[in-house]
């Protein structure tokens, strides 16, 4: 089978998975009361027309003429709204409408009274897709950085501990792996953050958090702790929202902070962003490193005992070359498979880490949207985030499979 045939075939296979995930979320959505579903999709009723989801209108509300001529009238708006979600239809039709809406990115509206709206007033009433699109690039950049950290640490360390089996290096790697399993992510992240803060002194006073020499127009570079977006002053706009959202595509063409800084001709600022991202990326990577390290070590041990490695050694090839070229390349398959399998776990770590470090990514939005106080829970955002995370995971799994097929010809030929 040619490579592109494999890619197409594998891509078609994701359709049932995506539809299946949407069916699961549909089951959960339709368990909600109807008014909650309407709020999640169309937003909270505004103070001007609080009756908008009432089944029956009182005289004087909306299109209903005032008393005493009339008593009550049916709510026509509600009828249209229900029809738009298919809620007046049987369940299979509702399912179809839900799938259609999900596939066309109509994921509802941010609740006006939710915790997210209380925390970020600019997001009130916006479409969920828009909000998520704004916050996605930061999460993607963080994910890319932590993936690099995962691979850079776990593969060499796993190989090293397999070569030095039961020696101190191996034991140290084992302890690292165990602590990754046993340490709650929020605890590790908080310790890293607090340790850094204590190390530096008072969080708000130290110049590291407020000042960057590479930001030309102002001293205040970062509004939150490190890792966050550069403050508006840096790009010359104001507002709660990051500058490129407030000022449109002209100031931030891509949304990735590092790339945007580069486009603005400020390479040092982009380096600064990367450095500030390192600590949260490490915190996210830690759990996956623990899993991956163990699998790399075990698969390396298995490969090292195979005949072709012994042959390579017998040919007099230097030990280092045998480990990196012969054994290492062959154990890479397992590494990639495990990386694909644990990707869901990896993505699931983002809400916590972004919440701890207060990074403006999707995870932070999710963390706020599930909190019942000071506002209410925001179901539109919760389900939208779940769908988005699932899409990311499914796409990552395809990439992993393609990489796997590229590395191991038996997969695409067999």
């Amino acid at each position: 089978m040619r490579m592109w045939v494999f890619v197409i075939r594998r891509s078609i296979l994701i359709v049932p998975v995506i539809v299946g995930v949407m069916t699961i979320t549909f089951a959960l959505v339709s368990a909600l009361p109807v008014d909650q579903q309407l709020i999640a999709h169309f937003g909270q009723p505004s103070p001007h027309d609080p009756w908008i989801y009432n089944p029956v209108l009182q005289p004087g509300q909306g299109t209903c003429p005032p008393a005493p001529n009339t008593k009550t009238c049916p709510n026509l708006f509600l009828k249209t709204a229900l029809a738009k979600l298919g809620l007046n239809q049987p369940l299979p039709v509702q399912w179809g409408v839900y799938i259609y809406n999900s596939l066309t990115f109509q994921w509802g509206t941010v609740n006006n009274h939710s915790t997210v709206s209380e925390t970020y007033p600019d997001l009130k009433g916006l479409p969920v897709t828009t909000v998520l699109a704004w916050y996605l690039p930061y999460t993607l950049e963080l994910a890319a950085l932590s993936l690099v950290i995962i691979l850079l640490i776990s593969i060499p360390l796993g190989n090293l501990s397999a070569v030095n089996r039961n020696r101190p290096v191996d034991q140290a790697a084992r302890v690292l792996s165990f602590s990754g399993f046993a340490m709650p992510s929020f605890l590790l992240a908080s310790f890293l953050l607090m340790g850094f803060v204590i190390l530096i002194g008072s969080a708000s006073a130290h110049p590291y958090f407020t000042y960057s020499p590479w930001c030309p127009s102002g001293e205040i570079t970062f509004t939150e702790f490190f890792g966050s977006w550069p403050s508006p002053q840096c790009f010359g706009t104001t507002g709660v929202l990051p500058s490129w959202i407030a000022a449109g595509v002209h100031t931030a063409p891509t949304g990735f902070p590092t790339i945007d800084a580069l486009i603005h001709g400020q390479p040092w600022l982009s380096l600064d962003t990367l450095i500030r991202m390192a600590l949260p990326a490490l915190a996210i990577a830690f759990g996956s490193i623990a899993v991956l390290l163990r699998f790399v070590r075990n698969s390396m041990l298995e490969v090292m005992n195979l005949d072709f490695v012994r042959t390579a050694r017998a040919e007099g090839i230097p030990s280092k070359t045998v480990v990196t070229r012969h054994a290492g390349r062959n154990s890479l398959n397992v590494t990639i498979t495990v990386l694909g399998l644990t990707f869901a776990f990896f993505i699931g770590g983002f809400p916590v880490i972004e919440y701890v470090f207060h990074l403006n990514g999707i995870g932070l939005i999710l963390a706020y949207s599930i909190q019942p106080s000071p506002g209410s829970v925001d179901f539109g955002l919760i389900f939208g985030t779940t769908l988005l995370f699932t899409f990311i995971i499914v796409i990552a799994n395809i990439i992993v499979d393609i990489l796997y097929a590229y590395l191991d010809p038996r997969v695409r030929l067999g």
Partner: protein
Amino acid sequence: MSSGTVSVPVTEKAGRRPNPRIAQWKRTWFFLRGNTLALIGLGIIIAIVAAAIYATTTPISWDAMTEYCGTNQQTGEGNTCPPGYAIVCTYPAGSSPPGPNCYQTPAGNPSDVAPTWSSHPLSAGPLPLGGLTLNPDEQYFFSTYEGLLRGSDWSLIISVSVVGVGALVGLLVGAVSGFMGGAIDETIMRLVDIFLSIPQILFVIIFVSVMDTVHPSIAGLSTDSSIMLVLIIGFIVIWWPFYARVVRGQVLVVREQKYVEAAQASGAGRSRIILRHIVPNSIYPVFIQMSLDVGTVPLLLGVLVYLGFKLFPSPYFPEWGSITALSVVNLQGFLATCQVGACIIPWWQILFPGLALFLYAISVNFLSDGLRDALDPRLRR
């Protein structure tokens, strides 16, 4: 096994062959005995189970009660004690003690009592692990030691029930899928794929928040109990596919073995083959996966609490993950208001619950590693 030569104990006695499964257990125990880390893990697990049994069977004696109503004796504020509750005398750091045997609260909350060995006339006794702040707004006082002891049973119940039921479902589904093959296998595996592409924590979050909105209490249970039940169900729903995949992989190997063929030839039914021949022989990887997962469940619960869910099996004695998460939240709020260096950071509130979680997870991991080494002859060497 460092000597290089391994002598397997001769379990056969003359004239009587032991049950092969018992012989297998004996062999496993023999190899496990040589693994120090695994034995340490086993010891810690036994200690935790003993603590949980003690916590469930022994009611809190109100004479030696360690849940106290905190009050600031200087101002008299915060005395919201129900009748029968003791009053703990506390005073903030920096000021002089209002009376003898009062606890200093370096962190500012009445309940933030640092580890101390000094005793108190109101029978609070020494607090070697310090006091705990579960909710800064409330004035209740907890001993960290008592909180950990009383929280151990829920930690165990939640993690063991999630992993146990999840593994049971996964085992059966995986065995059926692997043994039947064909369309059934394909369908089940696609279903597993679907579940595996949702992040666990996200699924539990949406499951719990939807269920909390729809049914605040199920089947007449209290709100706290029913949300725990919902939580456990949510974890099981997202957890079984992992086991199903592991088991299926193993069953695909096992079903080609000669003894399965022999069972088929002797006319055994499908259910009998699955339950008596396939499942017992593909169960070991599940055990290892289970022991890895048992320690993860309290961590995920802590994550949920950290993100702002109010999940307490018992309002006064939550389980370890919740205690850790609440302590971290408390510490962060504390750091925001306190000048670093000017006041003492309540490190004990995080260290000891975190250590409990860590020991629990790591001991199960040690044991599972030891079990894998003992069960897999290739790794013994």
